[in-house]
């Protein structure tokens, strides 16, 4: 199976984030990492390839720094990578991001496209589904298991409140992958060495511009959310903090 994995670089989970001067985005001087569900999407693609043969291609859109996620993907076993490289890709809405990805892989024939179920930055949870619609392919979201069969694939979708569902679907298809579908591997030293010789194709904004339109949803302002709850802050030596928490447990929570 030939599988395309869409991956995104996002700020590290516990990185302290600050707004930029005009409140349009965060300050870029933070540490980045692979969006967590995308790492699981890559792992699943590698496992499918190990079972059924084929090729795994990783793609990302973002500035030069984003190539780090592709290098990691190649080191873990992806065969090649595509980098839509331009800082402006970060500002695209989900529809335009999906259009850019579709344009970048035009002419290729994938059996499956994987994305993580959502990103830690925008959190649209849309790009994969939109991509399926643009390609005219069926899709399924929040996937926890994939098995290939004669008619295509049978996937396990996560529903809400602890429910799951199996869905049979034809190929080609787009799947959005849930964290925890598998156990992530680490890149090996040999993998890291080999990655240096694997093809990494760069695609400029100009090459996909014709496929894009203006963002139809406009992010006007980013800001620190207003608190809806009155929160009391507590800091200090552990023993004092512990005493104050007990007070709270007795007087407010009334559980003691």
């Amino acid at each position, binding site marked *: 199976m030939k599988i395309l994995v869409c991956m995104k670089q996002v700020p590290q989970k516990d990185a302290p984030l600050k707004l930029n001067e005009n409140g349009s985005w965060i300050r870029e001087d933070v540490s980045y990492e692979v969006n967590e569900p995308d790492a699981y999407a890559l792992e699943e693609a590698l496992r499918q390839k190990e079972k059924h043969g084929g090729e795994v291609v990783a793609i990302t859109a973002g500035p030069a720094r984003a190539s780090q996620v592709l290098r990691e993907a190649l080191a873990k076993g992806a065969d090649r990578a595509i980098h839509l490289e331009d800082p402006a890709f970060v500002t695209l809405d989900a529809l335009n991001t999906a259009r850019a990805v579709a344009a970048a892989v035009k002419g290729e024939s994938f059996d499956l496209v994987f994305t993580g179920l959502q990103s830690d930055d925008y959190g649209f949870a849309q790009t994969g589904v*939109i991509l399926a619609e643009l390609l005219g392919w069926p899709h399924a979201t929040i996937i926890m298991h994939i098995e290939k069969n004669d008619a295509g694939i049978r996937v396990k979708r996560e529903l809400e409140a602890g429910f799951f569902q199996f869905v049979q679907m034809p190929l080609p298809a787009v799947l959005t992958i849930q964290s925890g579908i598998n156990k992530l591997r680490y890149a090996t030293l040999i993998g890291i060495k080999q990655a240096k010789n694997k093809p990494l194709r760069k695609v400029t904004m100009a090459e996909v511009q014709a496929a894009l339109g203006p963002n139809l949803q406009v992010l006007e302002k980013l800001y620190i959310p207003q608190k809806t709850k009155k929160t009391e802050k507590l800091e200090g030596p552990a023993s004092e903090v512990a005493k104050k928490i007990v007070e709270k447990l007795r007087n407010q929570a009334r559980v003691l």
Partner: protein
Amino acid sequence: MANTILVVAEQHEGKLNRVSFETVKAAQDISAAKGWPVHAAVAGGGIEQVAGEIAAMDVERLHAIDSPALAAYTPDGFAFALNRFIADTSPQLVLMPHTYQVRDFAPKLATALGRPLISDCIGFKTEGDRLLFTRSMFQGKFAADVSFACGAPWFATFQNGAFRGDQARRAASPRAVELFSIDLPESVIRNRPEAPFKEARQAVDLTQADVIVAVGRGIKEQKNIDLARDLAAALGGEIAASRPICDSGWLPMDRQIGSSGQTVAPKLYFALGISGAIQHVVGMKGSRTVIAINKDSEAPIFEVADLAVVGNLFDIVPPLIEEIKKARA
């Protein structure tokens, strides 16, 4: 034609998803600000009874988009049916709850109509004539105001708990349900869904617990979970976790709180090393008292906490357990 707001209510196997009332409330609030009347629709197969529940709400018109081909949910079927319905009724604004099902078909529906979807909103505001939608970004660390730069129909989804469903205005007398029949060719639906099921019997029902001690990534190692267990034991509560802990197998899946796990509202929710990603917060924000310990003073969990303890949980929890034992003795 006058602008209208369309609420797409959600049902599963003939049962209304209660979160639909929150979407009705959101629509009623936007209606009060903009003067646009609220319509509602529910899609499925044999859904008269469900439509009846929505009919009790104060909406101007109520449609049942009914077809045997919609009896089992598929993204192809639902996107096709709603596309037809929207073409026929031309709403200005289409509102839906940000559920797993809506996430599965709404981006497809909006894209087919060449429109964006502003997803996972937590509110709205008006600036003069303009309507802005507020959404969480960066896992709740920031909020953003987002506007539509296109004509109708506009699509937006609201996060669970963003509006109070119990405050949705009810109609003086139930609305008549208007049937919207749809010819859905079999070839449209490509996916073959099987019946939903539960993985394993849920061993614990966390919704019944008065006290929950929940752990997140900040617990660092599996063996440290014993510390949280000791705290839970001292408080006579249950232990629970955020998704990554269950993904790692450190606690069983039935201990998971959040959108993919259980939704709880205990007397006390004690969050240890939980950052407070939206997917977790939707499962616990109804708790009466929330105490959170986190080393990051900016952690989003503190937004919903009554007591925000900034510090190292490994320093604080051991003396805390001793203090609780003393208080109980």
